[in-house]
C-alpha cells in the first residue's frame, strides 16, 4: 500500500539531511506509530511522506504512485493530514471544519451532495465528535478540537492518514481514546494511519508496527515487541538519567 523507496528527508539548509535512504513497506489497514526524541526528524519525515515538503531523494509511493508527484487535487483525495498546529478562525463551526474534508471531492462552489453529507456524518460519529455539531470550533477544548480535526481527515476518505503529534495537548484518557479510535479506523477502513507520538508506552501497546528514529539518521522498523526485545527502544531514548526497562515496558531512573 505505502512504500518508501530510498526516501531521504531533510532541508536544503544548515539542518541538512535528517533521514537517509529509508526503505520500507506498509500494508493496508496498518496503524503505525513513529517514535523518536525531539529533533529526531519525526515531523520532517511525516511532512515529506504527506507531500507537504519536497523529498531530498527517493519517493514515497501510495499504491505505486509517487505522492509528491501527484497533482495537489489528486493527492488531497488520497492523503489526509492532522497537524499539531491549532487553527483558529472566528465564526468557524465544527460542521464547516469537517465539511472542508470533502472539498477535494466537490465542484467549484463546494456544494455538498447528499453522499458527502453522509460521509461527514459518519466521520463525526467515528471520531466521537457528533456531539460538537453546531458549536464554534474556537470554543472547543484541545481534545475536542483534535477529534474534530480527525473527523475532518476521515471525511477526506484518504488511503493514507498522517497525524503529527496530535496527542501532545491531551490528558492520558484522551490520548488512549484518540489512539484507539485511529487504530480501529485503520483496521476497519483499510487506511494506512501514521501517527507520530511521544507516548512511548501507549504506542508500544497499540501500534501494529513502530518506526523508531534514533536521531542519528537511522530508522528501525518492526512490531513493538521485537524492537523492545532487541533493545532498540533503549538505544534511542536512554540518557544519563533514565533507562528503558524492556521487561517492564517503561523507563526507570538510573541509580
Amino acid at each position, binding site marked *: 500500500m505505502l512504500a518508501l523507496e530510498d526516501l531521504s528527508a531533510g532541508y536544503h539548509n544548515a539542518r541538512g539531511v535528517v533521514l537517509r535512504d529509508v526503505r520500507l513497506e506498509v500494508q493496508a489497514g496498518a496503524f503505525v506509530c513513529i517514535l523518536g526524541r525531539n529533533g529526531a526528524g519525526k515531523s520532517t519525515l511525516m511532512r515529506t511522506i*504527506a507531500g*507537504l515538503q519536497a523529498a531530498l531523494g527517493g519517493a514515497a509511493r501510495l499504491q505505486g504512485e509517487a505522492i509528491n508527484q501527484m497533482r*495537489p*487535487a*489528486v*493527492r*488531497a*483525495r488520497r*492523503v*489526509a*493530514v492532522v*497537524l499539531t*498546529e491549532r*487553527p*483558529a*478562525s*472566528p*465564526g*468557524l*463551526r465544527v*460542521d*464547516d*471544519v469537517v*465539511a*472542508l*474534508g470533502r*472539498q*477535494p471531492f*466537490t465542484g*467549484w*462552489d*463546494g456544494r455538498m451532495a447528499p453522499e458527502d453529507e453522509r460521509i461527514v456524518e459518519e466521520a463525526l460519529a467515528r471520531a466521537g465528535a457528533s456531539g460538537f455539531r453546531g458549536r*464554534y470550533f*474556537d*470554543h472547543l477544548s484541545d481534545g475536542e478540537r483534535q477529534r474534530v480535526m480527525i473527523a475532518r481527515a476521515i471525511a*477526506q476518505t484518504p488511503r493514507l492518514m498522517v497525524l503529527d503529534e496530535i496527542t501532545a495537548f491531551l490528558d492520558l484518557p484522551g490520548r488512549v481514546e484518540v489512539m484507539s479510535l485511529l487504530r480501529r479506523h485503520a483496521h476497519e477502513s483499510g487506511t494506512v494511519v501514521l501517527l507520530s507520538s511521544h507516548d512511548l508506552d501507549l504506542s508500544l501497546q497499540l501500534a501494529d508496527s513502530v518506526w523508531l528514529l534514533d536521531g542519528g539518521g537511522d530508522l528501525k522498523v518492526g512490531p513493538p515487541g521485537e524492537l523492545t526485545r532487541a533493545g532498540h527502544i533503549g538505544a534511542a531514548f536512554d540518557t544519563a538519567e533514565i533507562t528503558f526497562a524492556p521487561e517492564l515496558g517503561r523507563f526507570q531512573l538510573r541509580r
Partner: protein
Amino acid sequence: MPVRVTTSSLVLLAALLALAIYALARGQIALPFLEAIKALFGAESEGLSGQIVREIRLPRVLAAVLAGSALGVGGVLMQALFRNPVADGWSLGLLAGGQLGVALTVTAAAFAGPAAVSFLTLFAGPSITLAAAAGVALAAAAMLALGRRLSAITLLVVGLMMGFTAQGLTSVLLHFAARAGGRVYGGWSDASFAGVQPESLPWLAVPIVAGMVLAVATAKPLSSLLLGENYAQSLGVRVGALRRLALTATVMLVAPVVAFCGPVSFIGLIVPHLARALAGSARILPLLPIAALGGALLALAGDAIVHAPWEQHFLHLNAILAIVGAPAVILLLVFSPALRGWR
C-alpha cells in the same frame, strides 16, 4: 445555498431597495416616494424632480451601493487571506496606500509640466483608478509580508500606523502638487459618495464587478485557508496562486473605492462579522452575497444620514461609520476567543 443565507440576502436586499428609494426621494428637497420612483424611470423626464433624482441623487446612491458592496466583499477576502478578523482595506492601510498612489501620480504630473497635467485630466478616470490600484497593491503586498511575522493585533496597529503615514504624505504631496501645477485633483478631505460624477461610475463599477467575479471564483479554496496554509495545501490548494488571485480581487474591489470615494472606514471590517453571524458559517461563498448587500446597506445608511435635511451640511461619512464601527471593533477585540488566543 443554505436557507439562512437566502433569507438573510433577501431581507438585506429588501432593506437596501427601501433605503435606496428613501435616499432618492428625501434630502434638502423632499419628493413623494412615488414621484421619485417615476422620475427614476424617466416617466417625468422633464422638470426639476427628474433632474434631482437622476442627476444628483442617483449617482451618489449608486456609488454608495457599489463602494459599500466592494468594501464588504473585500473585507471577507482580506480576513480570510490574512487569517485576521480585524483585517480590511482601511485598517491595514490599503486605502491610504491607494491615496498615496494617486497623490504621487498627480504630483509627478504637476512637476512634469502642463502636458502631463492635461493628459492626466483627460484620462482622469482610468489614470486615477490605476494609480490607486498600484498603491493598494503595494500596501497589500507589504502587509502580507508583515502578516507572516506579526500577530493579528500587532498587524492591526502597524496597518493603522502605515495608514496614518501614507495619509500624511498624501496631504503634503497634494499641497505641493497644487502649488506647482494647479489643481488637477482636489484630493480627499474625507470619504464621501457625493463627489462621484455620473461619467466616473463605469470606472467604479467595472473593476468592482470583475473583482466580485474573481472573489466568487476563489471562494472555495479560500475557505480551506481558514485552517491555515498547511491544511489548505493538504486539501489540494495551491496556496501561492490562491494568495495572488485573492489579492488581485481585493485590489480590484478596493482601488476604485479609494480613487472615487476616499478612505471609507469600518465597512470592510465589521460587515464580514455580520455576514458570518447571519450565515451561521465561516465558509466564504455563502458570506459573499450577504457581505455585498450588507456593505451596500451600511454605506447607503451612512450616506443617508449625512445627506438628511440638516440645517447645514456638517456631518462626515467617516464620523457616522466610526460611531457604528469603532464600538463593534472594541467588542470584537474584547470578546472574540479567536483574537484573545490568536496563533
